């Protein structure tokens, strides 16, 4: 045990030096690192419609609406209906008695409450409320950002790497751009075309995915591994353009469906900062 702990500690001390001015530890940048820098963009489509209520939420909402009704007063419209009902009753009674002459001249209000209700119903019927289940849901079209409107969707793309088809986020290597955000923007535009409109949040990356390159490739690539800095972006409009053929395929998936496409490690890092609530 001790043998294992000591080298780890000593390593940590080596990499951090205490500054002689402010007596704080700074991370030294003098060590020559040979990691490749890359930037990826995680394009998120935020939920458009509300999520279905859970059991307790439903029960609580039900109770709240009941209490609201119990504490409320009759509205003006309801009151009018009540009074009209009473008038109708009185009218009928009079008719039964045989006084037909009086009823015609009095109480003919131009628009009754019932007429109003009919009118409102007609108006509602004229406007077609869009369904919560879209056509993309019915066809199970994974390529449409209009599927599963109540969930958060993430854009993943398929690329050919070393003869393997791999699902991942649209990403690209750092190519001496001014900022890392520019790298991310360029990568997204190269992979997905200009038709996809999105907005990258902030200048700082939201997450990091690190992996080491296999030993055989390390010398040719002149790098120990790759650090992918992941930016989050908000989907605005449009969709991916497949014309450039940088990518083979793309899909809009929920966080649960993500596990079918990417590696467990990558899924874990994504779920750490791509939150759904």
């Amino acid at each position, binding site marked *: 045990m001790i043998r294992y702990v000591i080298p780890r500690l000593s390593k940590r001390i080596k990499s951090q030096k205490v500054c002689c001015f402010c007596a704080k530890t700074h991370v030294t940048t003098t060590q020559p690192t040979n990691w490749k820098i890359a930037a990826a963009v995680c394009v998120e489509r*935020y939920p458009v*419609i509300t999520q279905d209520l859970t059991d307790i939420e439903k029960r609580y909402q039900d109770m709240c609406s009941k209490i609201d009704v119990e504490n*409320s*007063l009759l509205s003006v419209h309801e009151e009018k209906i009540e009074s009209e009902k009473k008038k109708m009753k009185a009218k009928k009674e009079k008719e039964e008695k045989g006084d037909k002459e009086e009823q015609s001249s009095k109480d003919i209000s131009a628009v009754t409450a019932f007429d109003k209700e009919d009118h409102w119903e007609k108006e509602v019927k004229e406007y077609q409320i869009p369904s919560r289940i879209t056509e993309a849901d019915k066809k199970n079209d994974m390529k449409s950002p209009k599927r599963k409107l109540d969930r958060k969707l993430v854009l993943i793309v398929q690329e050919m790497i070393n003869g393997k088809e791999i699902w991942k986020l649209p990403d690209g290597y750092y190519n001496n751009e001014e900022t890392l955000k520019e790298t991310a923007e360029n990568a997204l535009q190269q992979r997905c075309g200009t038709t996809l409109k999105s907005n990258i949040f902030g200048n700082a990356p*939201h997450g990091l995915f690190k992996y080491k390159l296999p030993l055989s490739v390390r010398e040719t690539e002149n790098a120990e591994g790759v650090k992918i800095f992941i930016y989050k972006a908000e989907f605005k409009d449009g969709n991916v353009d497949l014309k450039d053929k940088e990518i083979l395929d793309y899909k809009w998936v929920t966080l649960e469906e993500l596990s079918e496409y990417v590696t467990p490690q990558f899924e874990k890092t994504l779920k750490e900062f791509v939150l759904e609530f």
Partner: protein
Amino acid sequence: MSLGKISKVSRLCCSCGVTRQFHTNSKPLLFYATPNLSAEPMKRRKKVDLSKVIQSTQLKIRKMEREMRKREEKFGRTLKPVEEITGNIAIRRNRDKLRREFEPLPVEEIERRALLVKEWGHYKNQQHFTEEKALQKAINVQTKALNELRMESEELYQKAKQIHEGDIIYQFNGPTETPPADDFDSPDGQYIDTSRKW
């Protein structure tokens, strides 16, 4: 300057260290008397008859009162109502008539509701903590990513650290019950001014 005055002055100046017997200046040093300012001669006060003053003020008050009475008669004592506060007076008067009729709640129902409120509190509390935890984790992940970036390139780190001005004003139209309809032209409404003039 009389002798007495000089002696007084010299005593005054003593503390300042000026005790000379003669001086070329007309006044002792370090002692500057301000010249007299030519003032206006005092006005003679008019003798005011107190009773007359009282009379005149009373007259004024009476006049004001008369005017106020006139106004009251014209507009009544009612103040200009604030509609937002007063609300619909007819509804307030018939408040008891407008109540909905319900049978008193059974004991089980009251019990069930009380338990549900407790359960809800628990649920919300749990939800809040899980969200807080996840947010904290996301922040930690970001700082870790930034630190890793710093190890690679200090320049990129400094640029990534800067605030992106465009994100400070951020608008988001929240999730709705049903999705927005495509190509829907909302009809123009009518504008009717119902505010009363006073």
